[in-house]
């Protein structure tokens, strides 16, 4: 999508900023009203509509993306803070005509119904599996001093920041479990 004329999106120089960052491997440079969240930047300025606006208050997880490799809620990040940083959205998890192993597992396990929360679930699961690989504990990890085994209880706790109103949770857990076991 073309960057819109600046006059449409900024009314006041003091309250807007030039921001330069990377999205899915592509360098982006935009002038943004400082109030613009990363989520709105992706959806309204860059045409990347994978990340979804569910609650817009950090409670539902459907806007989850990876920021410098860490899963975050893009509705609570002002894009003006992102100079020099790197964002990965659901559109960047695999090439345009392929599925990542995680995405393939979501399809194989029917891990969604309406699909609205799915981009957030995928990005969150991607970040969560990296956290497990780094040996991070969770609230249900019994022994904090050894790396946790990724049980179903661990998957559910670690994915607690992503709601699914269709309640596809058992299939999401199955897809994440299979991905963890095979990659």
């Amino acid at each position, binding site marked *: 999508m073309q960057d819109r004329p600046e006059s449409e999106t900024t009314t006041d120089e003091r309250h807007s900023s030039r921001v330069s960052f990377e999205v899915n491997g592509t360098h982006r440079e935009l002038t943004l009203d400082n*109030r613009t969240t990363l989520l709105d930047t992706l959806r309204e300025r860059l045409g990347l509509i994978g990340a979804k606006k569910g609650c817009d208050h950090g409670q539902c997880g459907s806007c989850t993306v990876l920021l410098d490799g860490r899963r975050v809620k893009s509705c*609570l990040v*002002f894009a003006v803070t992102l100079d020099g940083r790197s964002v990965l959205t659901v559109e960047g998890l695999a090439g345009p005509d392929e599925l990542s192993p995680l995405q393939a597992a979501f399809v194989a396990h029917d891990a969604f119904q309406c699909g609205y929360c799915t981009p957030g679930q995928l990005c969150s699961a991607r970040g969560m599996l990296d956290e497990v690989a780094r040996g991070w504990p969770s609230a249900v990890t019994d022994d904090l001093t050894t790396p946790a085994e990724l049980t179903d209880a661990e998957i559910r706790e670690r994915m607690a920041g992503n709601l699914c109103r269709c309640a596809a949770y058992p299939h999401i857990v199955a897809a994440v479990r299979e991905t963890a076991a095979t990659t």
Partner: protein
Amino acid sequence: MRPFRYHRPADVAEAVAVLAAEPQAAYLAGGTNLVDLMKLGVQRPDLLVDVTRLPLDAVAELPDGGLRIGATVPNSDLAAHPVVRRDYPVLARALLAAASGQLRNVATTGGNLLQRTRCVYFQDTGKACNKREPGSGCAARHGQNRDLAVLDWSEQCVATHPSDLAVALAALDAVVEVHEAGGARDVPLAALHRSPGEHPERETTLARGALITAVRLPALPAARRSTYLKVRDRASFAFAVGSVAAVLDLDGDVVRDVRLAYGAVAHRPWRAYRAEDELRGRPFSPELAARAADAELAEARPLRHNGFKLPLTRAITVRALTELAEGTPS
């Protein structure tokens, strides 16, 4: 949302100087609370001073055995730190019981301590709230107050402090390093947050524009036997309706030392000194733990909908200490 200017300071001194010169400026760290409150119109800064790129993100072991945690260390990194997991499990457990993975990845140590109450009336600009708008009244005092305070509240405010981290830090006698316009100083965590009293809009003892730069944990070998127990309305990703941070040091079956702090009961993290006094020097038993909790809660004044918090806090005190005494913390 009100338009705001954005500034990234070069160092701590510049950040503090900018805040001193700009009466409506606010620091931006992880933003997990502030950005939301700006969307809700509860906070309306005209300048955000972004402190996330200041060099405050290190966790360092101190020569005396303690730990110095930079103010911008994310909650997730702190919970995963090997020294925290080994020497201060109460801290790791408190962090892991809070928020969600995505939020812990950006929420910072300093920001967590300065987060605002989740009282629904504070977050709703259509309701009276002395904390948000001094003198406007308190819609919570006789409203839906199930989630609110049972200790130390005032007619002006019945809000609770929402942090889990702060409760663990209160139990550990942490010290907060602060930079203000006049220079640097140390503030004991127990003295960081205020009672609501007549001025619930003043939540901490820090001067306006003060910047938290680090939190220091003293060496506390007993904290290897410690835990954090949190009760929520759902299994995960919710604020506490009751919580306890507990450190227990036994000599045989006698309590040599104990640290207890409660969450979700007051306007600040509640260090339970009276309960500790009841426990110290006595042979441990679940009955003793219950008596200790009752001593702490003797001056509680439950509101219309939150009387359950007293037996709840008593029960989690007994459970946390008994599990520590038996060597089976959950």
